[in-house]
């Protein structure tokens, strides 16, 4: 039985069939609707095809309350394509005085974590010839929230493990006029290669030995926090720095299974030249007008792909921008899994 807030998703393909096992404990809930692969085209090699699986990470109450320590371990076995989704944005509620209820107490982690803050941790292992697509809705931090999001993905093969990772956030409860009003947002995305490939069959991760078994190739670490010891608070406040946007996204597309998406992004990046800015430049009408983005090529230790940063004054436009770029996933994970993401 998992400890409070802990969960596990495990996908394995044996004898051409996909087996997905999930477990979770309050306040976390994981559900896995069935996804079916597209019918095989006669001339494709069925061994190359990935079998799709979908898991929704949910929480009771529709958000994360202060003091929650969500922890999910994920393993996507050879031959599987796992989509991890959420249902609606992840709300991080404001900090309240006092300690969280004692039945959520997690003895193991109480010494490491500050019980006044909220933590969400995900450790993902991607085996050879497997794909993980982590495509959540954005995180929305309420006023005063203190949020730490930590995601570490370990690729077991530099040449055949693939990943799509989307990490994004909104400015807050915009309808209530709360923009960039939370107290802390720390988001760490780590991509590593499993060192010592003979270990690849091992079951489950060991949190403490993770670092010794992994070689880190990407660490994206964003901190938005107002420091109190500043002489003039407005000068450093992230609310001023982010005043022109309401959504910011970081997207990683890595590995051979999704190279078609990375190639298209690279191509678009090189073709969409930026002309020197004129305040009265005429811009064509489209829902992508206000979306700003840039693509950075990644080629580290044989892992190839792109990192994309996207920002816009409107969550819907950013979402539409991302969905359009990820559309080739439909052919990679199949129509049924894709539609669960796309129609959400």
């Amino acid at each position, binding site marked *: 039985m998992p400890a409070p807030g802990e969960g596990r998703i495990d996908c394995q393909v044996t004898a051409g069939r996909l087996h997905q096992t999930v477990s979770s404990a309050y306040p976390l809930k994981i559900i896995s609707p069935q996804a079916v692969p597209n019918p095989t085209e006669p001339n494709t090699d069925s061994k190359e095809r990935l079998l799709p699986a979908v898991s929704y990470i949910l929480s009771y109450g529709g958000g994360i309350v202060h003091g929650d320590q969500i922890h999910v371990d994920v393993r996507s076995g050879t031959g599987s394509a796992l989509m991890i989704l959420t249902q609606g944005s992840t709300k991080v509620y404001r900090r309240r005085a006092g300690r969280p209820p004692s039945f959520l107490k997690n003895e193991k982690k109480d010494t*490491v974590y500050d019980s006044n803050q909220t933590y969400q*941790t995900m450790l993902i292992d991607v085996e050879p010839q497997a794909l993980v697509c982590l495509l959540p809705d954005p995180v929305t931090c309420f006023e005063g929230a203190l949020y*730490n999001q*930590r995601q*570490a993905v370990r690729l077991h093969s530099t040449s055949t493990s693939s990943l799509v990772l989307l990490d994004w956030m909104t400015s807050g409860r915009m309808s209530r006029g709360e923009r960039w009003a939370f107290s802390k947002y*720390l988001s*760490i995305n*780590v991509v590593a290669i499993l060192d010592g490939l003979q270990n690849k069959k091992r079951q489950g991760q060991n*949190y*403490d030995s*993770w*670092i010794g078994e992994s070689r*880190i*190739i*990407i*660490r*994206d*670490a*964003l*901190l*938005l926090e107002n*420091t109190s*010891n*500043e*002489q003039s608070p407005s*000068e*450093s406040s*992230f609310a*001023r*720095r*982010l*005043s*022109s*946007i309401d959504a*910011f996204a*970081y997207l*990683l597309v890595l590995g051979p299974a999704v190279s078609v998406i990375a190639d298209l992004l690279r191509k678009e*990046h*090189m073709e*969409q*030249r*930026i*002309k*020197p*800015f004129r*305040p009265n430049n005429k811009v064509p009408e489209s829902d992508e007008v206000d979306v*700003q*983005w*840039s*693509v*950075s*090529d*990644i080629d*580290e230790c044989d892992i190839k792909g792109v*990192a994309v*940063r*996207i*920002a816009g004054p409107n969550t819907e436009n950013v979402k539409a921008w991302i969905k359009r770029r990820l559309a080739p996933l439909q052919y990679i994970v199949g129509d049924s899994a894709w539609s669960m993401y796309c129609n959400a």
Partner: protein
Amino acid sequence: MDKETWLLWLLADSQLPTGGFVASAGLEAAMQAGLVRDGVSEDDPSSFLWFIRDSTSNQACFALPFCSQVHRLTLEHLQRTNDTFDEKGVVEGALADIVRVDSYHHSMLSSNKVAMRASLAQGGGLLTLFNRGYAQAEFMADRRGRLCAAMAKQFQRLSRLGEIKAHWPTVFGFVCAAMDISKSHMQQLYLFQFVRQLFSAAVRLNLVGPLRAQMLQCNIQPSVSNLLRQWGHVQVSMDSIEAIFGDSAVYTEPVLELYQGMHDRLYSRIFNS
């Protein structure tokens, strides 16, 4: 005049041959893409002055900790020579530590190609400058100096072999330690150079005149001083997964990072980053 002051002035020179003059830290892209606007008041959020302030504060928590860490590690290994005659062992031990810090910094730049290019170019430039210039100076002729020169040589050898990337903050920390510049002076110099380089880019992009730029550089001093107070003591911690998930080396400017990434999309450009 003491040696340290003299060396600091040399390193603070805008003509220091490390290639810093081709870098604008994303200012050129931000200007062409419309984040930074020409001709607005300096209080306006789209003024280049805010860009410089935010970008400097980003450097203080993103790169400065790496610089401090390498400085401390180099000094610790040099200390060890008081107890051992195994100089080869000291050199190798120091480089092993520097490689770890440098590759961790590399992972933090691997999804920002433009910033990585600038960091590698300037780091490589400074390492060459040290090897071909300072390492052969007379003040480096004592035992400590020779040891540092041996480390620098090994540093460059590993970098040629591709075993170390030699990023700007890493090399900067090493060179300052080798030249016996104190940690606090090194940190001041690091941020001073960064700010000066950005103002120089702003002048060349015609965002501000050269005379006004001097005045503004005076005014920014208290903010830089604040940043040093706030981030000067930070050590990069990377020995456990909790450390990797911690906030000891972070970036704070997602929007600036995004605009910097647009640099290669510019139709015409004068800077390399």
